[in-house]
């Protein structure tokens, strides 16, 4: 009799009701007035209505981004100063952390990340990953272009220092679980970039990738020109190879 109740209790506990994850999609936007409305309406249309919210972080754009957000009633945060992508993303993470979201997803404001892949990212988090990354090259081959040389270098550096293979380390499409949101929101030196991911891997975070497709940017200008790309690669490589190893792991 007693045994039966234990079994019954165990069955109950496995069926215990777990509320669905609350997901926040963070869209950093800097001078994205041309593509903004398209991106957000697309996002709203393609995401399940339950449990998914979004927030736009306007990084002090000089164009009509703020005005469009107000007119269309988008959920948005206006930064009073231009902070660049890391600052804009961190604002989003702070917002997610304070509003108690379980998962934060980062997608770009230019429409190159397709929202239909977001549920797949969330699924990886639900299965226990701390960070899920949308990779262009998980099953597809990586082309041998100049841009991808940087990607290969970064991947190599991460493999060397952490032992983990990331097929698309420069991908800006990621999902973070609650713990990662807290880390990225509340600490210095957590840019939403490859070096911070490498550091989190060293701290024990589980990272999974899913195959996604990305569109080319159609409007606006990227944060990256050729020179800034080179600078970015140098910074991130130095950070991963020479600095992250010295940071405290706990």
């Amino acid at each position: 009799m007693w045994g039966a109740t234990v079994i019954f209790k165990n069955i109950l506990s496995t069926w215990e009701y777990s509320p669905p994850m609350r997901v926040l999609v963070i869209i950093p936007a800097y001078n994205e007035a041309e593509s903004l409305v398209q991106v957000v309406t697309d996002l709203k249309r393609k995401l399940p209505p339950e449990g998914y919210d979004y927030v736009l972080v306007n990084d002090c754009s000089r164009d009509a981004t703020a005005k469009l957000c107000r007119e269309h009633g988008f959920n948005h945060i206006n930064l009073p100063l231009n902070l660049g992508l890391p600052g804009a993303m961190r604002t989003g993470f702070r917002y997610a952390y304070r509003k108690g979201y379980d998962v934060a997803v980062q997608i770009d404001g230019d429409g190159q990340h397709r929202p239909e892949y977001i549920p797949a990212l969330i699924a990886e988090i639900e299965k226990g990953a701390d960070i899920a990354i949308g990779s262009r090259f998980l099953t597809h081959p990586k082309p041998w272009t100049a841009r991808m040389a940087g990607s290969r270098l970064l991947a190599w550096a991460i493999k060397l220092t952490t032992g983990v293979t990331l097929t698309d380390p420069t991908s800006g499409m990621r999902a973070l679980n609650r713990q990662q949101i807290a880390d990225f929101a509340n600490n210095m030196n957590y840019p939403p970039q490859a070096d911070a991911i490498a550091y989190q891997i060293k701290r024990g975070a589980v990272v999974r990738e899913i195959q996604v497709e990305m569109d080319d940017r159609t409007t606006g200008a990227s944060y990256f020109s050729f020179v800034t790309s080179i600078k970015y690669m140098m910074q991130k490589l130095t950070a991963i190879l020479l600095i992250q190893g010295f940071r405290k792991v706990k």
Partner: protein
Amino acid sequence: MNFVITIDLQILLALCSVGTFVYAIQKIRKSKVRIDDMIIWILGSLILLVFSLFPRFVFWAADLVGFIKPVNFIVTGVIFVLLILLFRQAVALSQLKERLSDLTQEIALLTKDLEDEKAAVNQKNKEF
């Protein structure tokens, strides 16, 4: 060994140190700067002044560390101190950047909360 430092250099050093001292004090008097941040400059200028007035001390110190010419000792010393100051500036600047970024984000989030609140109140008023 020749124990005379050229009188030109002596005067130049003395003038520079007095100038730095007066300039720093002026800034403090006009409330343009925090006293805590000027202390290193005040002390530094005084030390340079002592060096220029009593070069014997410089000779002794240069000899101790192994410099052949006392002038080289002074120049190297000044460069060294400048590097340290520069590094400290870099650290302070980095911290300021981070704090500015933090403040900016906090202002943005507060503004957002405020506007959401306002919108909610307006909505309520409409429903009444």
